[in-house]
């Protein structure tokens, strides 16, 4: 039965040896040599330092293509033409499934045909050398972004390959990304990833870790996301990580988004040990996008505006082609520049919106309820508590595809467009908070002259792609019109 305890050094070495034998490139890892490589990198490539010392939100896109030279070209473009402050390398789906063989096939096919037959960069297959070639070629720090339940080999190779930031976590890369991996299993695997990052940290190479805040990207109530961020931050801290970036995905209501980012930073600082430097990352809208680049630019800009007000440490931008598919590099850079323009025009303005403190207070109270129930479920151990709380449904994520979460909680927007909880299922929450949500949602139902139902949820899921924030009834029968 695993607990929230640091993996002992010998155990770390044992697992490390074992997982590195999983694919040929694993054998090339030499920890001492890797430390020397990191030490040789200029200050401008030290991810944690660059992020933590920035005086305004840094922008980072998403991007990953199979071939190394293409990936270099893509990132150079995003750096030069998009003016990205931080760069990504998004990993392909086969690697996420630990199917390095299939990834190899895809990579070879890509090399032969010139087509992108993988939806990301297979870093394990490229190996340490390939990774370092990438790191060396670019000026900005680069993060590994993936969605891998078992990312141990990916971490071993990319850390040794010179990456200093690694997205994900045992919950956030499990619940939204996979059906069958148990939580206990992914926690155990991520303890290794964090422990490895901690081993580098101990040697002065502070690997930045970034739990994935948006989760399913679809109307996730802020407190659920924040509680999971705190848990993953705690787990990482236990293993020795000292630079942690907690994430949050825009819901589109400015007051709620600013309040949530404030709460995320505040509770992160409070719950995580003092020796951890906590930063925040804001993801531009992660749900369904409008099938129209012009409208998508509006969605992106609203994200920029929110970022200018809340001033997170980092913003992950979307492209106007988000709806359609993997964006061209031009569209990706355009998303960066649109965001930059909005932020830079708005950030020097004093924009204090009423009601942020109240909303933040509500989010904090909700988050504390969830944290309390997690600790209670685990008799004080956050690992056990997380597993038990998901099991009982006291902790849950809307639209979770994973068997490890009930996925029974359902969100809906209130009359102001803030995300509330419509179906609580077994989610743990104080009654007075539930009453607040209930009242807000019944106010909306009144406005719309209809009952609260799954149809409202479905309408809200589609609303932003349909051009609105709130999924108001349109007169004509929509989804669920027959119930």
């Amino acid at each position, binding site marked *: 039965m695993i607990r929230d305890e640091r993996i002992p050094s010998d155990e770390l070495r044992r697992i490390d040896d074992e997982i590195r034998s999983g694919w040929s490139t694993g054998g090339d890892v030499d920890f001492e040599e890797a430390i020397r490589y990191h030490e040789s990198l200029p200050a401008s490539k030290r991810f944690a330092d660059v992020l933590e010392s920035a005086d305004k939100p840094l922008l980072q896109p998403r991007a990953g293509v199979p071939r190394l030279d293409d990936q270099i070209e893509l990132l150079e473009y995003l750096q030069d033409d998009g003016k990205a402050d931080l760069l990504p390398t998004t990993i392909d*789906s*086969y690697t*996420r*499934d630990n*199917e390095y063989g299939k990834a190899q096939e*895809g990579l070879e096919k890509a090399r032969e045909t010139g087509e*992108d*037959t993988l*939806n990301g960069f297979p870093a394990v297959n490229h190996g340490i050398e390939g990774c370092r070639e990438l790191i060396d070629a670019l000026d900005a720090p680069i993060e590994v972004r993936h969605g891998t339940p078992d990312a141990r080999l990916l971490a071993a190779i990319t850390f040794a390959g010179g990456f200093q930031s690694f997205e994900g976590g045992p919950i956030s890369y499990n619940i*939204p*990304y*996979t*059906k*069958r991996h148990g939580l206990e299993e992914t926690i155990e695997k991520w303890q290794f990833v964090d422990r490895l990052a901690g081993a580098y940290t101990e040697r002065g190479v502070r690997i930045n870790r970034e739990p994935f805040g948006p989760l*399913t990207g*679809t109307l996730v109530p802020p407190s659920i996301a924040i509680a999971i961020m705190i848990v993953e931050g705690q787990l990482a801290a236990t293993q020795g990580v000292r630079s942690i970036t907690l994430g949050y995905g825009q819901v589109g209501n400015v007051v709620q988004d600013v309040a949530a980012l404030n709460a995320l930073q505040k509770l992160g600082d409070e719950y995580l040990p003092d020796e951890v430097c906590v930063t925040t990352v804001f993801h531009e809208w992660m*749900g*369904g996008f409008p*099938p129209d680049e012009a409208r998508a630019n509006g969605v992106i800009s609203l994200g920029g505006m929110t970022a200018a007000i809340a001033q997170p440490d980092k913003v992950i931008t979307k492209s106007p*082609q988000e*709806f*359609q*598919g*993997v*964006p*061209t590099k031009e*569209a990706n850079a355009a998303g960066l520049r649109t965001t930059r323009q909005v932020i830079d025009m708005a950030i020097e303005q004093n924009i204090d919106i009423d009601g942020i403190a109240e909303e933040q207070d509500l989010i904090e109270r909700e988050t504390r309820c969830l944290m309390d129930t997690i600790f209670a479920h685990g008799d004080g151990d956050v690992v056990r508590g997380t597993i038990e709380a998901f099991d009982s449904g006291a902790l849950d994520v809307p*639209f*979770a*595809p994973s068997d490890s979460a009930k996925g029974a909680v359902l969100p809906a927007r209130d009359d102001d467009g803030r995300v509330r909880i419509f179906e609580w299922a077994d989610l743990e929450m104080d009654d007075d908070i539930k009453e607040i949500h209930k009242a807000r949602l019944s106010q909306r139902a009144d406005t719309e002259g209809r009952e609260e139902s*799954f149809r409202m949820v*479905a309408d809200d*899921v*589609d609303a932003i792609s349909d051009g609105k924030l709130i999924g108001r009834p349109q*007169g*004509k*029968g929509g*989804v*669920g*019109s*027959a*119930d």
Partner: protein
Amino acid sequence: MVLDTMSRTVVLGVIGSDAHVVGITILEQALSAAGFDVVNLGVQTSQEEFAEAAVAHSAEAVLVSSLYGHAEQDCQGFHEVLEEADVDAMTYIGGNLAVGQDDFEQTRETFEELGFDRVFDSETDPEEAIAALERDLHVTTSESEQVTVTS
């Protein structure tokens, strides 16, 4: 409202290692509301799981969803697997079927060649899928009107 379509069973799932669940959640709801009997296999469903479910529930249609851009690879040989299991159902595929900014007509061809009866893009409303199913499974018009008229 109870319709005759209650007897019409459709199998629904996301193929491959794709975990995008929101689309099929909405589809499941809409199909059920329209009177279909929906067997939702969820995300990350293998070709074999689709075939088994279609046999077990005598499904009249198999609805495959794919969003993450690996649809083509994931569907290679799918219709052979269905045939081997003696599945004789309509097959639909929908979602975001190509990597990158592709032309949809090309994509449609690719998937029709793979054996799918209908190919839908990601702008598809559930209503369109329902209308197509009603046509393909010969649900009578009056029933379908009952469904769409209620608002």
